[in-house]
């Protein structure tokens, strides 16, 4: 038994040496959020084409898994849709820096037979529907914001994500900010919560599938998923009281608005940000980078990649329907790269 283990180790060692000899490639392992996976894999691929000696291997195992693996030291860096909590940072044996990479948004999608136009959702209406306190489509809170739309006297079927997800994190972050009831009954932003009402669907495709199939239903999905699949979605009332339809510009506006008050560690929620053009259910997604990296080759590779991602990398965003980072945030992040030692 011990011999076999020894042999396996020897083989692994040989393989490692062989790998290292073949041109001194720097291999970085990363894991985490699934939401930014399309843009990350694009970035890592393009970056590898430009710097053939650097290869970044990213596993989209979910934000929770990314944070756990980073804490356990099994990956070189992580990625998450929600910032790490103070408690999680306290558990880390090393300093962890947050770097916002792209922006995303979550939109309400619905299926009401006979209603084709875009509905306006007040903040109260969304919170009430998902709390189960607003149960009919012709409730005055919904009807008041949609004059002229003939809303049916039908029960609302709420659809939420069944899997833990960054999308749920952003959605509940917004609801907790706009509704005290939500905050006390369901709690703060989280990747999965104890839903007061509704059905669960797995993934964006599960939620949109259930909404499409179920008459009088409402669910929430990522903006990028709605755009790519031509799914109609409603307008949401922002902090300034205006109804805004989510688009990339509105999301970047939300981020620019919050850049003025951005904390130095970039852990900030930008849902319900002030400003007339802001789409209120938006969020950054972050790379989680260790503050100290012993291996100088790896450290240089990560710093080089971050600098590229903040400049040239951002050009790839809109092709994949991710909103670009605002200039102010990019400037601040560029300075923060030097904190990696």
């Amino acid at each position, binding site marked *: 038994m011990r011999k076999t283990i020894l042999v396996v180790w020897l083989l692994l060692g040989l393989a490692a040496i062989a790998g290292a000899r073949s041109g001194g490639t720097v291999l970085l392992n990363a894991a985490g959020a699934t939401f930014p996976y399309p843009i990350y894999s694009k970035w890592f691929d393009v970056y590898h084409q430009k710097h053939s000696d650097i290869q970044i291997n990213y596993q989209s*195992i*979910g*934000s*929770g*898994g990314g*944070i*756990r693996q980073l804490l356990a030291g099994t990956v070189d860096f992580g990625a998450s849709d929600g910032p790490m*909590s103070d408690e*999680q940072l306290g558990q880390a044996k090393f300093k962890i820096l947050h770097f916002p990479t792209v922006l995303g948004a979550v939109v309400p999608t619905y299926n009401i037979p006979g209603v084709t136009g875009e509905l306006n959702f007040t903040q109260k209406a969304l919170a009430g529907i998902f709390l189960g306190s607003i149960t009919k489509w012709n409730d005055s809170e919904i009807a008041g914001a949609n004059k002229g739309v003939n809303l049916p006297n039908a*029960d609302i*079927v709420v659809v939420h994500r*069944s*899997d*833990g*997800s*960054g999308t749920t994190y952003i959605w509940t972050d917004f609801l907790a900010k706009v509704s005290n009831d939500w905050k006390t009954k*369901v*709690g*703060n932003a*989280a*990747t*999965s*919560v*104890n*839903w007061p009402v*509704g*059905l*669960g*669907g*797995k993934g964006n495709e*599960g939620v949109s*599938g*259930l909404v499409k*199939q*179920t008459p009088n239903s409402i669910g929430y999905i990522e903006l990028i998923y709605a755009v790519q699949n031509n799914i109609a979605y409603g307008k949401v009332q922002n902090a300034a009281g205006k109804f805004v339809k989510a688009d990339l510009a509105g999301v970047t506006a939300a981020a620019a608005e919050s850049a003025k008050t951005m904390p130095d560690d970039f852990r900030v929620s930008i849902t319900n940000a002030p400003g007339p053009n802001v789409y209120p259910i938006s969020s950054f997604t972050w790379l989680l980078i260790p503050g100290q990296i012993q291996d100088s080759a790896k450290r240089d590779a990560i710093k080089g990649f971050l600098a590229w991602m903040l400049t040239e990398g951002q050009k790839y965003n809109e092709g994949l329907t991710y909103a670009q980072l605002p200039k102010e945030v990019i400037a601040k992040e560029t300075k923060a790269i030097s904190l990696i030692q």
Partner: protein
Amino acid sequence: MSAAATTIAHEAPPQSGPRAFIRRLGHGDELAHLITLTFAAGILLLTSLLVYELWINSHLSRSKFGWMFFWTRVWDPNFDNFGAAPFIYGTLVTSAVALVIAVPLGLASAIFLSELAPRKISDSISFLIDLLAAVPSVIYGLLGIFIVVPLMRTTLGPMLIHSVGNVPYIGALFRGPNYGVGFLTAGIVLAIMVVPYIISVSREVLLTVPREQREAALALGATRWESTWKVVLPWARTGIMGSIFLALARALGETMAVTMVIGNAARINPSLLSPGDTIASTIANQFTEATGDLYLSALIELGLVLFLITFILNGMARILIVLTERGGGRPV
């Protein structure tokens, strides 16, 4: 060859020491014994390692919630309050629905294939059934989403609510609101998934019943059906039970197909038409994004609970088999 080997083994004087051991290994018997023993022990080791890992990693949750974990009806990751009751309920209910549908269906098919159908047809059909057993579960999930769910929402659900829903007692099982997804839909999809197991294994078992048994029954004046019902089935009882429990094990642990059609709501509701959740589907849904230590620990404890349920049900199956055998089912 084996005869020669035994002769040599018998003639050789009892020896000790490593040389003798190696020589004895050369005869095959000892070697085969050693290898099979190692592999068998490996299975045992693997199972205990699994339980050990689940036990150790669920420590936080076990020490915080204790036995209450089984009764608590809330699953709230945000306030760190976890209970397995809705998931245990969902797991047992969906598996029970699946068996209620699949057992009569599967058993009738197996009887037809082994007793009534011509051998050629029986063989080709059972080949197709074996293929069904190999279809990945996500395909059954899709079948559920695109066919069973709409059917349940538009036709079957309202029909059940308006007919059986008014019957006292049982009526509570079929009350609205009807979303199309829920316990019953999940049970139906599970039934479609496990029926091939019941047919395939039961047919094989029925085919092993000796011809003489059937002939004896017929000679005594029994009809074909009487011989099947009173002689062949009791003879094959143990094997048929085995097939049913194989199906049950599959239904208890099924993840993907269930997640897609059960509605994923951690609630206990007596109506089979309401959405619910199972243990396996909850673990699959929430494991990747579980950040808190207690949250993760509670999910692992859910795994332990599923293991426990499987263990208990299998134990009950064993007892049931022993009891029916004692009842003199198999004529000797």
